[in-house]
């Protein structure tokens, strides 16, 4: 199978690799880079456990080929914490009990991050809409909504 040389920046770090054309971005992240925080929960682009940011936009990395990320920036859950400080979303999820088994959590966090970057004060309806492509089987979403609200409030406070 043909290999392609790609340069992809992952969590701020430039990476170079030769990847098969059909290699999914999620498998490259997980199996090659060993960034296993990005999860796989389905095969039909429904669950969102694999959500990462591609040039700041949330994408389902199970439905992106690694070659499609060539020359672009990928952000994963592993890059949320900065210099030992949790991202307000990470703090929000812990404070508001926004996770149980934790399997959907990385995807929720990345979707949440993209939401808050574009909207610092989302309503409950906007949050629910934003995470509607991320399935959680454990929490019933109530506390995920609260977690994102918690983070939004904290971010607003920080920038005030």
């Amino acid at each position: 199978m043909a290999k392609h040389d790609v340069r992809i920046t992952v969590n701020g770090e430039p990476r170079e690799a030769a990847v098969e054309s059909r290699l999914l971005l999620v498998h490259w992240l997980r199996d090659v880079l060993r960034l296993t925080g990005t999860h796989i929960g389905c095969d039909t682009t429904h669950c969102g456990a694999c959500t990462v940011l591609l040039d700041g936009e949330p994408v389902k990395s199970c439905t992106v080929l690694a070659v499609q990320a060539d020359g672009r920036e990928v952000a994963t859950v592993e890059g949320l914490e900065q210099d030992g400080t949790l991202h307000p979303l990470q703090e929000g999820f812990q404070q508001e009990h926004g996770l149980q088994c934790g399997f959907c959590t990385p995807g929720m966090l990345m979707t949440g991050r993209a939401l808050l970057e574009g909207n610092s004060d989302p309503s409950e309806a906007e949050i629910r809409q934003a995470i509607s492509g991320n399935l959680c089987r454990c929490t019933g979403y109530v506390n995920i909504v609260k977690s994102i609200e918690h983070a939004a409030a904290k971010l607003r406070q920080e920038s005030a």
Partner: protein
Amino acid sequence: MAPQTTPEVCGMGHSMKRKEDPRFIRGQGNYVDDIQLPGMLYLDIVRSPFAHARIKSIARENALKVPGVLAVITGETLEQYNLHWMPTLMSDTQMVLPTEKVMYQAQEVAAVVATDRYAAADGVEAVEVDYDPLPVVVDPFKALEPDAPVLRTDKEDKKDNHIFHWEVGDRAATQSALAGADVVVKQDLYIPRIHVASIETCGCVADFDRVMGKLKVYMTTQAPHAIRTVLALVAGHVGLSEEKIQVISPDIGGGFGGKVPVYPGYVLAIAASVVVGKPVKWVEDRMENLQADSFARDYHLKAELGATKDGTLTALKIKTVADHGYTDAAANPSKFPAGLFSIVTGSYDLKHAFAEVDGVYTNKPPGGIAYRCSFRVTEAVHTIERLTDIMAHELKMDPADLRLKNFVPADKFPYKSVLGWEYDSGNYHGALRKAMERIGYAELRREQADKRERGELMGIGISSFTEIVGAGPSRQFDILGLKMFDSCEIRVHPTGKATARFGTKSQGQGHETTYAQVLAEELGIPAAHIEIEEGDTDTAPYGLGTYASRSTPTAGAAGAMAARKVRDKAKKIAAYLLEASEDDLEWTPGTFSVKGAPQKSKTIQEIAFAAYTNHPPGMEGGLEAVSYYDPPNLTFPFGSYICVVDIDRGTGEVKIRRFVAVDDCGNIINPMIVDGQIHGGLTMGMAPALLEEISYDENGNISGGSFMDYLVPTAMETPRWETDKTVTPSPHHPQGAKGVGESATVGAPPAIVNAVVDALAHLGVRHIDIPITPEKVWRILKDKGAGL
């Protein structure tokens, strides 16, 4: 109950933040598919497109030509080792790989082992299987007809498709009570097949060390110890013996019962690893998961409920056909082929009841396993709560009044139910009244009347359920003969910190936090200083695992009992250190002091240090204890839920406007976690009520086999659940707790259905089978001339 310990100690009743979260919010969890061992191979599975077919041939040559493919395993390969069949947890048998015929669509037919997952998938594509289709039986009633083809031809004496008959109660007395009742309502109900669909699918990494003869299996399992025993029983004859098997259940991405059974994929990965001597990973994809593993429900019920004119419920009779698919692979205690279905008299003081269940084979994957309730309690609660509403309608009584009139009164506990259970404690009136107050029941009824005048459709539904959890007492409960106790081992270290191990396995319930709180409550050691470990059979004490809401009632209780043993020894050490008699000591969490002289005291940390440095002469050193807790009874959590729905007359869409859940799970370990469990449970109760169903066409083709058409609730459909509680401690659990994981899944569906039927009752609607899809409602509205 106000917490007895300080926030620093964080015993029961504190909403301690979870100890497991720091790794999960950083993406540092360790799930099975995250494990990558040197030289690891990948296994993928060839599955049958037919629901019933003879296998004429399997050609592996082309697959073996695929770069990276190392081996193709078939039933014949396994037959050489007598590993092609395995027992189910119900002592039935299940194919690992077929040698003659397949029995359901998506059944495992062959396995491909390759150097990476893409090569394995290519190999699967290249295996050529030639099938000869056989007649398919998907309807359990047809399966019971005398001329139906016998499906289990592997069983020599089997002449039909009937698996078991089970009954409980007095048939004759119930019949005559029904005959004498003023009013009898009858209803058929179907509770369809559904799937837990935990967001992590099932999988394992099997790692066999040829030199040491040791097998290590990292596995998505809720019951690692039981699985190890099963593996030793299945593969003992090929040299795997129990002390050489280590089952490790790492972080689990949701279980809900779907990760209790042994699936063929696990066995195949293990067999492959043993044969090639390298680690082998198998992780199923979502479609495999939805099409082949862990189905629940599939109960066809005929129910009759009798009452006097003034609304006293008198008798209940139920006949059930249970579709188990091609094998009985449920995970019920062995004496209970229909699980704990006999909780079906629910929260009501019924004098007569009879229930019978017949299990049937069909051409479907193994069913009856679990969906956040494995023991048929959901089916039972759905039936009695629906029938109660139908009766209220028949008697023109308010469904709340009918319930309040018939509840087992609080002063009758412990209560012996007519079908043989002893309910430990309850206050059903309290829970329903609280829910009615919280939601504003009377006001809602007025609103509904007004809306009805205007032609708007709004309904209010109640469910007052009684759960039955904590299996269970060893005199009655075992799985494959293994008694259903559970365990805890505590080691208090010299510096006063502790490590404790349990026989259960969390899949998101937060055991690392709650068990630490259980021990903190008993020992006064801060929960932050107690490390909890589970899921490694080499280190944890034997236990039957986490399912059926049993962790708190069994292993949690074991934790409390082991902690009390530690405390007993600590008391002796304290007496020695304080030069006092044990009888003169009193305990406040974390400290023994001399009665009347509180300045003379020793903290648990000081005592722990002394246990290793200065223990009394004649006493063994150390501060450790183990408990294998055999509960004297089950626990019976309960609650009352009220749901308000609005129905769109144009589209038939049901919108849950409000849902108030008042739960009583006895004393609470961590209120935050209990609330989270209830939120999740309610969502998994709403899902089958409104969205989820796995069905089959007459050829056994599955519908609902991917997330394209199996509709797991998103944040859009899920309402903002409102939770509240009453607290009625269990009298026999050492800490008065009961278990809560499944209450809401069990209790929610009838509240929702009752609300929808209530909204349509004036049109003559009496019952709707779940899932209540917009299409079903739209058709009803059209039928009744009430659509838009």
